[in-house]
């Protein structure tokens, strides 16, 4: 989130967070305060106009936030402001000094640096004189600035206007829009920075989700492409394949794509790669989108690759999900969170084919770009597998994605003299001299065997790519 805003929220100024019902504005504001208290030593005051302190504490407890503890430690004050319209009768001139006094008292009592007002629009519903309210709100935001606190103000989206009561006129410095959409039965939450005076910010929509630790925002890609590259080489898991790769294997931190029709051995090659990495003591995160963990382990045992010990040693972690389970963004954020938490050296996505079904070509390419950039920035080697339907002409989508990839291996079925052979061919591998031969690729009881192709008769020519 800080990346998107170019450093976080503007200090000492109010930020407006608006969205429809259920867009988690409250959570956003609350997390801002909680993080301030727990990570930056900045106590906060949460003025809740709609929920009580107990309700809030309950809502966020499932995300691992202990509000009551923070309150006890005087790092947080939750002030529930209750205004009952029926209780109130207007009888003349008034102002909202009571609110100022309450807020000021709360801020001073714990030395708060962050304030959240959720949602201050309740004032408009409760008090009939909107002119007074508007004037007082203007005064409030100036007052907050003078007090030197950074404030988050939540509001509901209006019909055609940004907020129902025009709060954006007063909180003009930074406005964040939260959105919750359901498209094609997949629900996504997005946020967008609408204005942010005085600093650069991304103008796009960024997907986010509410995970088990609160709000996660997908980081933006560093379009500058200025990440460090490694010269180190790592084994593919199969010695002969390493030989084809300039004798040394892949570059660490590079991106690898293995394509092939069904049953050609893509997952097996991935498993060999992972097996070799775990043996080196490196952590691997395997995202499986088609087969279950136990099925993969069973299948790999048949070619003498035993992944179970690596899992036990916590060097290998599987994450299984069907792509159609949720939206593209949700997959991305989930992956991002897991990678951040687990810190692997190797990440495998097997296969990425089904992602093309849940997004347009452009969206999927954008998603893969983001993953690759994110992994490269962290020097994590990425391996992707994908089906292709036609060996001679790979689908357009694959070709589009392949331009992002450093090494592209193709597994093919080759027929000759009534026999079928599997062949492995390196379509490209940046930065190294690689073999241009098609080698035979076999899955045997003793593992993967790569050798010279022995075809009597006609030999299929590799298509130029």
């Amino acid at each position, binding site marked *: 989130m800080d990346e998107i805003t170019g450093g976080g929220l503007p200090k000492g100024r109010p930020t407006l967070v608006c969205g429809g019902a259920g867009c988690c504005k409250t959570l956003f504001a609350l997390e801002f305060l909680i993080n301030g208290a727990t990570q930056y030593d900045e106590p906060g005051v949460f003025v809740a106009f709609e929920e009580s302190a107990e309700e809030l504490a309950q809502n966020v407890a499932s995300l691992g936030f202990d509000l009551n503890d923070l309150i006890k430690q005087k790092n947080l004050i939750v002030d529930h402001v209750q205004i009952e319209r029926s209780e109130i009768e207007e009888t003349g001139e*008034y102002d*909202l000094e009571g609110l100022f*006094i309450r807020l000021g008292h709360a801020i001073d009592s714990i030395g708060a640096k962050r304030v959240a007002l959720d949602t201050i629009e309740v004032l408009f519903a409760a008090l009939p004189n909107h002119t007074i309210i508007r004037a007082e709100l203007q005064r409030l935001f100036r007052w907050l600035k003078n007090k030197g606190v950074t404030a988050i103000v939540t509001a509901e989206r209006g019909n055609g206007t940004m907020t129902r009561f025009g709060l954006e006129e007063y909180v003009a410095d930074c406005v964040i829009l939260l959105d919750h959409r359901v498209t094609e039965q997949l629900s996504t939450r997005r946020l967008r920075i609408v204005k942010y005076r005085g600093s650069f910010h991304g103008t796009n929509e960024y997907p986010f989700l509410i995970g088990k630790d609160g709000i996660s925002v997908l980081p933006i890609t560093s379009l500058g492409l200025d990440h460090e590259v490694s010269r180190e080489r790592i084994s593919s898991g199969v010695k002969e394949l390493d030989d084809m790769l300039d004798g040394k294997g892949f570059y660490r931190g590079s991106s690898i794509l293995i394509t092939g029709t069904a049953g050609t051995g893509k997952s097996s090659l991935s498993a060999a790669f992972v097996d070799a990495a775990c043996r080196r003591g490196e952590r691997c995160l395997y995202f499986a989108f088609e087969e279950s963990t136990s099925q993969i382990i069973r299948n790999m045992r048949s070619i003498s690759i035993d992944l179970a010990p690596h899992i036990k040693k916590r060097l290998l972690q599987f994450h299984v999900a069907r792509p159609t389970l949720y939206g593209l963004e949700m997959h991305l954020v989930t992956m991002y969170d897991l990678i951040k938490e687990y810190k692997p050296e190797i990440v495998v996505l097997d296969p990425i084919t089904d992602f093309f079904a849940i997004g347009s070509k452009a969206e999927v390419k954008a998603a893969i770009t983001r993953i690759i950039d994110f992994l490269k920035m962290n020097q994590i080697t990425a391996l992707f597998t994908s089906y292709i339907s036609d060996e001679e002409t790979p689908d357009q989508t694959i070709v589009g994605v392949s331009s992002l990839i450093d090494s592209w291996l193709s597994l093919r079925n080759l027929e000759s003299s009534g026999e079928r052979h599997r062949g492995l061919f390196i379509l490209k591998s940046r930065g190294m001299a690689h073999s241009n031969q098609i080698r035979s690729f076999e899955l045997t009881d003793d593992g993967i065997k790569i050798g010279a192709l022995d075809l009597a008769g006609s030999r299929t020519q590799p298509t130029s790519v």
Partner: protein
Amino acid sequence: MENVKPRTRSRRPAKHWELRLYVAGQTPKSLAAFANLKKICEEHLAGEYHIEVIDLLKEPQLASGDQILAIPTLVRKLPEPIRKIIGDLSNTERVLVGLDFREQK
């Protein structure tokens, strides 16, 4: 500002009024509210009443108890239910409605 009348201990709930006026310092609005309130009480509250004035500038922590946002606010604590009247009480009609004098009769 000081309290208007010494508190009596006799209990006649229907006729005993506990009123709290919240102000923030001696501003014109606050002074007007107090003056208006006294006048209304003397004219309309035949029974016993007790006005307590709370200056939030001196005691800010008392604002959350009665959920005070607007200043001035008059809170009718007794008889129940609690009613809140905001403003300088210049509109006597509204004050009477707000305090719900029908209970008196």
